[in-house]
């Protein structure tokens, strides 16, 4: 497991969490600890258990076994308390179409128990924050997907929660809107504890303090994006395209100390290296068979693909 970064205390603790849907095991002894003020990214393939995990934290689903505590409160005993501490943006943040943006926020504000004398100013402040003050009295059904997502995000913030959980907040949005939302989430760092489930590795890389790779209901790796990229799966990938790859002995390449792994994809070699020390020696092995050579820093996507293989 990866390095720990300095935070004050733990905000969310997940202990041995299990959840099945019929025969499908969505979570398999999941353990995770999220610190106060941390922005944790959860990445994983479809069906990895990301949404199930966050639904359990939000007290929407009940686990088969295991426990979750949020700020010391248990999901079994203090559901209302936990729900009032969390702002949740689900994967499909379908909103009440017939409401105006202001009324929708007021409705949820009242349900969260926001004092009536504060609610209007809070709504105005949040709408301005996502640059939607001018659309406050328009109905939700007149909004584009991006605008709805902005409303969905500030709806989750209406009661100024300690914990924010975003499930795929930029899914299906255009790059400009995604950028606005990412900047907004980045602005929450430190003040709130944030869990961000995403399929976009660059998003996790850019925003998260730590990233957990979830697959088949378990955490496979967790750490800072840098840590995951550097210490677990090497720091450089050498891509060499060749004529007749089978004529080159893979063991000769693996014999170099800096080589960590070799993958062959048709006529292309992907060689993971710890350092650049033996690049010229490796190229000598390929000799004139090498058609093109490229070096690439590993991305979180590479880490993800390696991990879930």
């Amino acid at each position, binding site marked *: 497991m990866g390095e720990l970064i300095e935070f004050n205390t733990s905000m969310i603790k997940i202990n041995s969490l299990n959840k099945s*849907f*019929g025969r499908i095991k969505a979570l398999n002894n999941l353990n995770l600890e999220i610190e106060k003020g941390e922005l944790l990214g959860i990445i994983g393939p479809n069906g990895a258990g990301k949404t199930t995990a966050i*639904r359990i934290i*939000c*007290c*929407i*689903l*009940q686990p088969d076994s295991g426990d979750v505590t949020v700020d010391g409160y248990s999901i079994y005993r203090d559901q*209302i*308390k936990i*729900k*009032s501490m*969390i702002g*949740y943006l*689900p994967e*499909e*943040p*379908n*909103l*009440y*179409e*017939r*409401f105006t943006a202001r009324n929708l926020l007021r*409705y*949820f504000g*009242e*349900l*969260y*128990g926001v004092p009536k004398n504060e609610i209007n100013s809070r709504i105005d402040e949040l709408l301005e924050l996502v640059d939607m003050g001018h659309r406050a009295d328009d109905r939700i059904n007149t909004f584009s997907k991006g605008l709805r997502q902005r409303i969905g995000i500030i*709806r989750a913030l209406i009661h100024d929660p300690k914990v924010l959980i975003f499930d795929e907040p930029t899914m299906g949005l255009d790059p400009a809107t995604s950028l606005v939302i990412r900047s907004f989430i980045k602005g929450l760092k430190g003040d709130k504890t944030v869990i961000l489930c995403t399929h976009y590795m660059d998003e996790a890389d850019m925003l998260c303090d730590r990233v957990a790779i979830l697959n088949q209901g378990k955490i496979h790796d967790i750490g800072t994006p840098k840590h995951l990229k550097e210490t677990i799966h090497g720091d450089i990938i050498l891509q060499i395209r060749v004529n007749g790859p089978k004529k080159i002995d893979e063991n000769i390449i693996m014999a170099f100390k800096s080589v960590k792994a070799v993958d062959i994809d048709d006529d292309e070699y992907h060689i993971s290296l710890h350092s650049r020390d033996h690049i010229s020696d490796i190229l000598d092995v390929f000799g004139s068979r090498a058609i093109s050579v490229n070096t690439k820093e590993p991305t979180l996507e590479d880490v993800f693909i390696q991990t879930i293989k």
Partner: protein
Amino acid sequence: MSFATITRWEFTSTLKSRKFLLIFFMQLSVLGLMIIMFNSFAANIESEKGIFLTPSLTDFATVDVQDPGGLIQKRINPELIKIYPSNNNNSIIRLKQGETTGLYIVSADSLERIRKSESIDTLLYLDYSDPKRSVVRDEINSTNNAVASALTNSYLQSVNPKNTSQTGFKEEKSGEPLPMQIIKKMMLAVLLFLPLFLFGNMVIDSVVGEKERKTGEILIAMPITSFEILFGKGLAVVFTIAIQVAMWMIILLVVGFAMKNPIQVYLMIVLTSLPVVGITTIIAAYAKNYKEAGIGITFAYILMVGFLIVPALAYISRQSSAANISPMTTVMRLFSGETIPLQDIFWPIIIILLGTAATFWIATLIFQRDDILFGPRPGIINLSLQLLGIKKR
């Protein structure tokens, strides 16, 4: 008190909805049409010719008739009542043995007395243990009325049976014919209770709609209990029903329906809407989509209407005290101006309150299960066994 927030928002949002207003006024139009239809139906019943309510009941009841002059006997509807010419002593024995439902005696000199412009005596004996007595009584009464209308008052001043009560029999001196009682009381009761069954779609839209529009997940993530969500939504529908019932009652009073104790009648109907909405909420909590919910409420509403109407009909025909379990019976007795003993009001109210608590409790148990919303959803039998604690989840 978060349910109050949900109720307020749901209710105001309903009133602002154009679709709802359209439905609301269409329902009022239906009521208008029903009143017109009812009035024309009642007019036909009360006319001399009348309309035959029981076409399939040939020889439904038997009556021994002693009418030497044939004044009345000829006019009794033979399709409904089988007539036996009477020998008085023999007929009394037949009546005692339950072989005939009634004995009707018209004075032997009836024709002679009509000529002299004198009133004639008629006597009607009924077997009071026989439920068909009402049909006989109604038919004899309507025949008498028809004869009376056919003759001028100078020939027949009144049909005035004497008090001839005997052990086991009872003479029916006067009274509204049964079909008219059924029509007047039942029609009015049905009209009053109808709004309770017109707003099932609102409950469905409010609960199943959250699932279909996928807004339910956000609502469940709110710091409120499942009971508060369902009860809040249900109460909003009850308020809407209350408005509709009030409007219907005003219309019915304006067009001339006799209705005593209107406030008590109103409160009883609105109170009855609580378990009706509760049962609809159970169906909505379980249903995956509108189609399923629609099928569910069709069956449930048939059963509920049966529960309301059957005891009320039993009360009209037999005055049975067990019929008071139905709030419709209480409402009928209230608008008829009857003095109702406290225990007769106590039971329907207890049933309503217990029904409301039970239905919302069951709906909450279903709604708070994550497998209902996120699957795999258990079948109805499995779910029932699990709720009863017979089977483990």
